[in-house]
């Protein structure tokens, strides 16, 4: 249980006086160090999500909660998107729910994803995946999704390529998406990864190998038959559909990382 095992010694306040210590602030020299985490709280929806933030493949309205804006108010404006083309790679749709300790859906969390492009390159990183990795000008690799009232979320993205375990060499990791969870009741971000259950290389992934075998399934997105969700008639949706749930506590609790 993460109860805050502190590795660094507490800095001494300048004086024994509690009153003086209480007047210490951000600029007090003896206090310099990492700014502490605080919860994102329940009201982030007008500041953090932007129109289409959950769709990494093209312009859309997904990811935010316009239903939570009072009449006459709106979320902060998003980017001027004039992307010329969809990004390279196999398109995916990733849906699921966030659940609390009681198995109840959580309607007020923010999920963030970060992933490589189809050829295994992280945008802006300087890290390059395998030899053929290239920058895809149409793909940033970062997305956000605020859960809906029923606790569900939906990302649209592309299947990431494989990236090296270390900067330029070493084992290749299996395709995966880094996931961050923030919300009311979460004093700091929880991080994990999403892997794909139909990926043959998962057995060799160095990070998955560190996960206790009986908990590995909590990191696996399950392939869903897309035709089961299609409307009658020819479907234009050629995305592969995956299901991934986040369980914050209790039965089948998701594995969360420390790094």
């Amino acid at each position, binding site marked *: *249980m993460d109860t*805050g095992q502190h*590795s*660094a*010694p*507490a*800095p001494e*306040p300048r004086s024994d006086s509690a009153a003086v210590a*209480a*007047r210490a*602030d*951000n600029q007090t020299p003896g*206090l*310099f*160090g*990492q*700014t*502490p*985490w*605080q*919860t*994102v709280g*329940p*009201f*982030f*929806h*007008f*500041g*953090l999500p*932007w129109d289409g933030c959950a769709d990494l493949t093209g312009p859309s309205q997904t990811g935010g909660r316009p239903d939570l804006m*009072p009449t*006459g108010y709106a*979320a*902060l404006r998003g*980017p001027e998107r004039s992307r010329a083309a969809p990004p390279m790679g196999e398109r995916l749709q990733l849906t699921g729910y966030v659940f609390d*300790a*009681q198995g109840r859906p*959580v309607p007020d969390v923010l999920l963030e994803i*970060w992933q490589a492009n189809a050829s295994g390159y*992280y*945008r802006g*990183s*300087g890290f390059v995946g395998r030899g053929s990795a290239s920058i895809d000008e149409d793909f940033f*690799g*970062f997305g956000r999704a605020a859960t809906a009232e029923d606790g569900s979320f939906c990302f649209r993205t592309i299947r990431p390529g494989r990236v*090296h*375990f270390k*900067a330029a060499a070493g084992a290749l990791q299996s395709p995966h998406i*880094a996931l961050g969870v923030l919300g*009311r009741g979460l*004093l700091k971000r929880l991080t994990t990864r999403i892997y794909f259950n139909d990926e043959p290389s998962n057995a060799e992934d160095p*990070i998955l190998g*560190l996960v206790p075998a009986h908990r590995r399934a909590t990191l696996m997105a399950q392939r869903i038959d897309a035709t089961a969700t299609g409307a009658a008639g020819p479907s234009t949706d050629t995305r592969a559909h995956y299901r991934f749930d986040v369980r914050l*506590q*209790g039965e089948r609790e*998701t594995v*969360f*990382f*420390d*790094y």
Partner: protein
Amino acid sequence: MGTICVVNAQLSNAGADFRREDGAQPPSLFPPYASTVERSPREPLLRIPQTPTEQSGPGEWEALFGAQVTDLTCTRGAPALGQRIIVCGQVLDEDRRPVARTLIEMWQANAAGRYAHERDQWDAPLDPNFSGAGRVVTDEQGRYRYTTVRPGAYPWGNHYNAWRPAHIHLSLMGPAFATRLVTQMYFPDDPLIEIDPIANAVPRAYRQRMVAHFDINITQPSYALGYRFDIVLRGRAATPLRAGI
């Protein structure tokens, strides 16, 4: 003739790990903040090595997130009500290296303590001239500056007569997925900080890091009070200096 000592003065940090959380970071479970009880994991976190996934991060802000908004007092017609304030500072890492060109997103309640959000329905008025969200990108020296109004305190349901201290929410990406930070900036001499379960989740010795510093030199005559607030992200573990003769 003395020996010539050639020292590679360049610390190479590319690919160096980010340092661990220090003692200031709160736990995930903190029962006085009631909603953590059913939303915090019970299993220990799994320690994993940092890979390019954790050590990279998006770096193109306006193309990805949208344009900067650095004056929250005049985004909607007439000026917002309340005490106008300027907030500025630097984003640094633990080694005091400026973090240039990084994004800060901010959001807050209005001067009456009311959020422009459907889930906030307490009896304080909305300000038609204030929504309360902005974003700023630090300059080449890691500096940022924005103008807003001082948010009011607001009541919440955590316990009887619970009030959040006045605060501005801040969200930072930093250079990597691992350096992500969300925090809250508090104001000096606010008696609510000491009795606030969210602020109290941070150990007392470090709590005042989150309190802004009133600065008469940032204050502008007949315009706005000024506060300084530096934000410190995880630093790098240094690789050894190489010395050769």
